[in-house]
């Protein structure tokens, strides 16, 4: 609210309020935006070369040491399974993605809206924050057996678990962003006669955006973990379920192929938000 301006002593050099200094970032955003993957072709070649050497070395080591396939399949076998059996994995990948997307959308929207609302009312924030922390710190997979018991083996319990994992994570980071009130910038907007809504849209939201993006990224990764975990615990489909399925049948090449898919999903999430951060929050770095 713009009213906070009216009683604020106009010196902006010190941080406003004690909590400001305790900006808890789960991710170090500046590190994230300033490091680039490869700054030149030389670096890119080096990165790829290390990967090739690692995979080839693993292949040779496993062959030489004669490690049985049920302990660790050869990288070449995993690759063959990944491409040869992709048709088997694809429907399950679709199931996992759908649960993740729906749960994430619900959780992220609720998280951002709640953060935006709650930071406007410090008293309400004080009351609600412990419960949000409780939700952040409790692994939501723990709820899945209970939800399955009530709702059956459909996607609903998993979607709920993903939302519950994503929402608080997005909220807690977004709230940190919304709490960063830069009184000088608010005063600037007010000096042009800005309304509370204009201040929110033009000052508070852009100021909070880098932290919102961090929240969305951490939330997406937590959402993926929870989606897969929930499939392991209580589902007949999805990539998590496939992990259980293939390991119980000792089809380790397939098992590892699923793990490679999951790792790729995680990396894609990271790269996507890295790009979003570069595009929308680079002013922060």
């Amino acid at each position: 609210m713009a009213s906070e301006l009216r009683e604020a002593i106009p010196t902006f050099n010190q941080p406003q309020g004690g909590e400001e200094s305790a900006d808890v970032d789960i991710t170090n955003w500046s590190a994230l935006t300033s490091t680039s993957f490869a700054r030149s072709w030389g670096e890119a070649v080096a990165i790829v070369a290390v990967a090739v050497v690692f995979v080839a070395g693993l292949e040779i080591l496993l062959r030489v040491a004669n490690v049985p396939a049920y302990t660790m399949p050869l990288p070449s076998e995993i690759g063959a399974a990944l491409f040869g059996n992709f048709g088997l994995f694809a429907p399950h990948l679709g199931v996992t993605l759908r649960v993740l997307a729906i749960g994430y959308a619900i959780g992220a929207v609720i998280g951002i809206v709640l953060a935006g609302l709650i930071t406007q009312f410090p008293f309400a924030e004080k009351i609600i924050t412990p419960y949000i922390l409780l939700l952040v710190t409790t692994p939501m997979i723990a709820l899945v057996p209970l939800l399955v018991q009530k709702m059956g083996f459909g996607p609903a319990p998993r979607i709920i678990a993903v939302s519950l994992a994503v929402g608080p994570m997005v909220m807690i980071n977004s709230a940190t962003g919304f709490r960063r009130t830069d009184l000088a910038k608010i005063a600037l907007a007010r000096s042009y006669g800005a309304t509370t809504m204009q201040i929110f849209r033009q000052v508070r939201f852009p100021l909070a955006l880098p932290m919102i993006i961090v929240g969305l990224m951490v939330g997406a990764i937590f959402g993926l973990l929870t989606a897969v975990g929930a499939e392991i615990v209580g589902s007949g489909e999805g990539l998590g379920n496939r992990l259980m399925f293939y390991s119980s049948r000792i089809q380790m090449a397939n098992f590892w192929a699923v793990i490679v898919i999951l790792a790729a999903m995680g990396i894609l999430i990271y790269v996507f938000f890295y790009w979003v951060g570069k595009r929308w929050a680079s002013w922060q770095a």
Partner: protein
Amino acid sequence: MVETQPQRRTIGANGAGAPEADGRPITMSVRHVSKHYKTGTGSVHALEDLSLEIPQGEFICILGPSGCGKSTLLWGMSGLHDMTAGEVIVNGTPVTEPRPEIGMIFQDANLLPWRNLWQNIQFPFEIKKLDPRPFEGRIRGLIDEVGLAGFEKKMPRELSGGMQQRASIVRCLSYDPDVILMDEPFGALDAFTRDEMNLLIQKIWMETGKTIIFVTHNVSEAIFLADRVVVLTPRPGRLAHIFPIDLPRPRTVDMTFEPEFIHVVKEIKNTIETGRYTPLPKLTGAARS
């Protein structure tokens, strides 16, 4: 110009230090303004019964030590702060909220870091829901004048402190306010850039004839720029003295080394230290009281 202001503070129907002589209309009146801030540990008494009249087109500097309430006074003038007592009147209307004829320039430029220079200058128009197109020629001219042509697409962090402050000056002038309030705008700049900015502000002021109220804690800067320097006492801020500055314009950096300039510097520093004005022995020649 009124020659002397002997009292620590003048309380009268006219307020203090009214330069009624040349008959210019009064743009801003500050009448018996006081301000207490409520803080966690009690209250801060920032301003005490301060009155001031500022005629149209005057360049006035408000000078005082840190924490003397000079920023508070300016924020009261802008309508961003409510005063505990007294009132501020602009062109006959009491200021109770930010007004369109008042523009403000802040400490440290205060650009929005997520907007480029051009978008920053558009910001007031977006908030005011004003169509910027009729002002575009004016804005381009201003950008040219302050030497920022070609930098429109740059983000604030790519600009030096001086360039950022130039951009904020353009942003303020873009929609053509009558009164410009400046809150220690060059405090964070190095001495050379500060001199440059002071020359620029003087030039803009001489060209546009705006009423400028400029808060600073830098004595030479105040004398260099002002028609009158208003000195406040340490907390609570009271009017210590108003120094008319009769140096010819346009003023140059060289003038700041002249004996009569330095004489005023000494008088003002003395006034700030003691809280009241005592004339120092006159220089031989043209030094003013």
